[in-house]
């Protein structure tokens, strides 16, 4: 009897769940409770373990330890379809829709209504109309999903999720692509869905939204449960300090770069069609310029636009004092700008080819070729030299690159740009997928390169990494620069503040000045000033 009462109090319970991957502890003894009829916000930094938790709940992964309970019953999920049938609907940040099919076809995919064994469009459209009507969604069953706006596509996802009689609705950053009006429509929908039998887990970084929609906030960090607080009784600085709470590594932080250093790269008013708006920053010689921000803030897009991999719709780039237009990565390489992609395996390396070929690929034409003939011996010699200086662990330069560890693969990519003589290096997540020991080596290498006078842009989602390595930090949010911080004024809190704000007018002004000072920050975010008083951070 008591068990049932406890069960009915908690709609969903996560008890002591752990999940590890080779070399990574994604979740450790995680727990979480979702009460009947509540909206629970789940927050944490990039990589805190939110998506792992979702994948466990949808049966894509299996937990190493721990258990899940749904309405007082143990829950075991064998896959996404099973999760749906048991009443758990997850709306991922990336939509799972078929753009060429209609709204109704998308909603009923995999369980199409049949009449006498044949698909019945009429029945399907009728049921879809009924559902859309019940949910009050402004959609028509026969509309082709690909023609809808992002916000409406998301409504299709929601309709699909709710058509399974969901009891638990989990939404991952549902408002990332929505404007204010669309956000409030979404919130209305969530409020209408909420009932004594249901509950919502709402993953978001936008503090203003958490205030608006959630009853409680659960904070997780580094795969572990931190705390759960009542939304009404908390403040944004409190939530942020719970999110970033870990202590910094004791490593000495770099001093702010001297202002008398020459500026090698100046970017102004950079825009792209999809995301970036008026991005500006400058990079000095021998500087490591960190780029911080949440997933989707537009950091990678800045790098890609800069090297011409994506098209700039507006903006100017001055390189070593001269204005340039870079149309493709080949031109960027000629200007001695090297881009090291976050997706090393797909965009950085020729995995099936050997180490020497990878190191030489960018420079083979100018350095190892006479009259079109490749001097393989010189190429391998140069590669061996790089293997020695960067300490790449490989049995030989003729080793196939896919057999190297992540850290050594990263060094191969670095070697490629050093052989090309690049003096501006753009690192996108330089230590992603690299184990702890090798990370230290990459950090040392970055410091050495900066000391040798290379200018480095370092995009990273790991805050401690950005803080430890950068002379200055550019913080981005939603396609804009929300602030630039010197290393001595940057803290986890100040960076997180800038990264989680919706860019309102104040901040946009500040971004144009290239700096957000504390008074602006405090006026934009109630409580931000208090936070700054904390002397430890």
């Amino acid at each position, binding site marked *: 009897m008591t068990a049932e009462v406890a069960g009915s109090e908690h709609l969903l319970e996560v008890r002591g769940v752990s999940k590890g991957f080779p070399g990574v502890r994604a979740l450790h003894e995680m727990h979480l409770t979702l009460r009947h009829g509540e909206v629970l916000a789940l927050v944490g930094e990039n990589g805190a373990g939110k998506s792992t938790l979702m994948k466990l709940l949808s049966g894509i992964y299996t937990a190493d330890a721990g258990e899940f309970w749904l309405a007082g019953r143990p829950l075991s999920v064998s896959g996404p379809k099973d999760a749906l049938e048991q009443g758990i609907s997850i709306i991922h940040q990336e939509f799972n829709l078929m753009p060429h099919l209609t709204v109704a076809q998308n909603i009923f995919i995999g369980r199409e209504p049949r009449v006498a064994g044949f698909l019945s469009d009429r029945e399907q459209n009728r049921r879809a109309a009924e559902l859309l009507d019940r949910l009050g969604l402004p959609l028509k069953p026969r509309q082709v999903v690909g023609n809808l706006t992002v916000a409406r596509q998301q409504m299709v996802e929601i309709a699909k999720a709710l058509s399974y009689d969901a009891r638990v609705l989990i939404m991952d950053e549902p408002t990332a692509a929505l404007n204010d009006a669309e956000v409030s429509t979404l919130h209305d929908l969530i409020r209408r869905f909420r009932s004594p039998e249901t509950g919502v887990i709402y993953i978001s970084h936008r503090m203003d939204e958490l205030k608006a929609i959630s009853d409680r906030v659960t904070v997780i960090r580094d795969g572990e449960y931190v705390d759960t607080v009542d939304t009404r009784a908390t403040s944004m600085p409190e939530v942020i300090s719970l999110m970033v709470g870990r202590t910094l590594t004791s490593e000495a932080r770099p001093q702010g770069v001297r202002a008398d250093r020459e500026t090698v790269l100046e970017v102004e008013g950079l825009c792209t069609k999809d995301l970036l708006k008026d991005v500006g920053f400058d990079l000095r010689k021998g500087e490591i310029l960190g780029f911080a921000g949440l997933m989707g803030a537009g950091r990678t897009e800045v790098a890609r636009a800069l*090297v011409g*991999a994506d098209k700039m719709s507006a903006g100017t780039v001055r390189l070593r004092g001269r204005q340039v237009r870079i149309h*493709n*990565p*080949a031109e*960027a*390489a*000629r200007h001695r700008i*090297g*881009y090291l*992609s976050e997706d090393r395996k*797909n*965009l*950085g*390396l*020729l*995995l*099936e*080819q*050997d*180490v020497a*070929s990878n190191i030489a*690929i*960018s420079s*083979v*034409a100018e350095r190892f*070729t006479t009259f*079109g*003939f*490749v001097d*393989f011996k010189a190429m391998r010699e140069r590669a061996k030299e790089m293997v020695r200086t960067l300490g790449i662990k490989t049995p*030989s330069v*003729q*080793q*196939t690159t896919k057999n190297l560890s992540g850290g050594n693969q990263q060094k191969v990519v670095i070697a*490629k740009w050093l052989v*090309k003589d690049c003096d501006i290096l753009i690192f996108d997540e330089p230590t992603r997928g690299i184990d702890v020991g090798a990370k230290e080596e990459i950090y040392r290498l970055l410091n050495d390169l900066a000391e040798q006078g290379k200018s480095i842009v370092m995009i990273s989602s790991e805050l401690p990494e950005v803080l430890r390595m950068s002379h200055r930090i550019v913080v981005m949010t939603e396609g804009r620069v929300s602030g630039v911080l010197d290393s001595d004024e940057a803290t986890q809190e100040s960076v997180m503040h800038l990264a989680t704000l919706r860019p309102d007018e104040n901040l946009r002004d500040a971004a144009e000045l290239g700096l957000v000072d504390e008074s602006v920050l405090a006026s934009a975010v109630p409580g931000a000033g208090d936070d700054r008083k904390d002397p430890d951070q």
Partner: protein
Amino acid sequence: MTTLDATTGQAAPSGWAAGLKDRLQQLLAFASLIVIFGFFSVASSSFFTYGNVTNILFSTVVIGTLALGTTFVIITGGIDLSIGTGMALCAVMSGVFITNMGIAVPLGVLLTLLFGGLIGLVNGFNVSVLRLPPFIATLAMMLVAQGLALVISHSAPIYFTKDPGYVKISTGSIFGVNFPNAVLVLLVAVVVSVVLLNKTILGRYTYSIGSNEEATALSGINVRRWKIVIYTLAGLFIGLAGVMISARLGSAQPATGMGYELQAIAAVVIGGTSLAGGKGSVVGTVIGALIISVLNNGLQIMSIPQEWQNVVLGLVILVAVYADMIRKKEA
């Protein structure tokens, strides 16, 4: 055997261990060639004779030449369907240059090669600037070339009766002995291809593009331009094949050509070049082309009807590609 050893030294895109695995398919193809060859030698006394072996080599020339150019395209991850009818169009152009316009044979041959290059250039432009899928771009070119060959020739063969020297390009023998020049031409084409693919920047980028086109572009290589170069190179081989087939027949036959592209692609695939790109070798392609010729020739000698030859060829492709997939799974 010497040819194979020569390439094992040259097929150097990968390290030793991986290289050995890569070569396994080539060895496998080579072993099957030997087995098939041995089988026919035992089955028919007229198979393993100087005359017949020369005959096999001679009949490999056209498919072999086409397959060489296509090897480059396929290693980039592309495909070229226009090589068969493109060859017929080049043959017709050769007739136009030499017979109709009376241009001297050497210059006429050069112009024909360049015309083939033009076909490839257009393919390359369509694939890399207009970004059409290679299958579509070259399918369109296949039809265009077929039609143009008929239009230009008024659907009638053009004979090279005025220029007996032209026919000698294929059937003459500069060594005096009974060894056709066509085979020498193929040999030179093979050597040039091996050098291009393994020793030059062009070959390096051919492998890189097929291995990972986007990473290659982000490494600062002008992928678009190099793809145009590679398709144009394949076009030069189309031109060469056009010369070789019309020299052999003593006439340009505008209605031939269709079907050669599939045989050439089959040769490339049997030779272990992956349609997904990034991997392949010239020697593999040569072995693939030889397997096709040996099969056709042997089955003919054993009086097995023409229709069955294609059945056997189809099965050989299935087995060859399946063996390649098994090998990759194990690797």
